[in-house]
């Protein structure tokens, strides 16, 4: 029983780590590229700075959504899933 609970907790922690690690790469790299290109655009047309900033901020907010999704899944895997799985296991073996 203890081994099964340990495996469940370990897998949940591993899943949360992988989820957060991979999920956060995309938005981080994407935002970095977007801002770098925005710098280039402002360098070419300095008068468009306000419009570019506004578009960038809204674009970054949208790009960050996937990172927040992965955060939510990681939080569920750490704090919610282990309890449910352990209870299911206990019910299955009749404890």
């Amino acid at each position, binding site marked *: 029983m203890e081994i099964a609970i340990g495996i469940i907790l370990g897998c949940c922690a591993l899943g949360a780590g992988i989820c957060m690690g991979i999920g956060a790469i995309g938005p981080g790299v994407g935002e970095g590229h977007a801002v770098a290109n*925005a710098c280039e655009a402002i360098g070419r047309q300095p008068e468009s700075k306000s*419009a570019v900033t506004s578009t960038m901020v*809204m674009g970054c907010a949208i790009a*960050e959504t996937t990172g927040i999704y992965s955060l939510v899944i990681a*939080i569920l895997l750490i*704090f919610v899933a282990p309890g449910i799985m352990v209870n299911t296991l206990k019910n299955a073996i009749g404890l």
Partner: protein
Amino acid sequence: MSFLNKIDPSIKRDTRYIAMVVVLLTVLMEAVFLIIGKWDMTVLFGGLLGAAVALLNFFLMAMTVQNSLAKEEKDAKGAMKVSHSMRMLMLVVVCAVAALLPQAFNLAAVVIPLLFPSIGARLHSVLMKS
């Protein structure tokens, strides 16, 4: 006052817009919790914490964008990556606090408002097109 003067007017405008959307959607979320009969003070506190953190996250991101646009391309890219990591860490800490204090915060009520700024941003792009 000097800090407020340094903020780009477009960022002030966007933050005001996102704050409005976050407040509206948080009130809607509280109403949904009330309708389904799951509302209590933990949902209220969780909603307030989630909305405040979502708005802070957006504002910090906007400030990083403003500062990055004054830098070289490579530095801007690095600054955004560091800012993203730090903001994610802040969100993880807030969610962990909410999960570890269930008697004070409802976890769902904290997590759901974190998605409201992106809904506001999508709504903004739709409104701009139309």
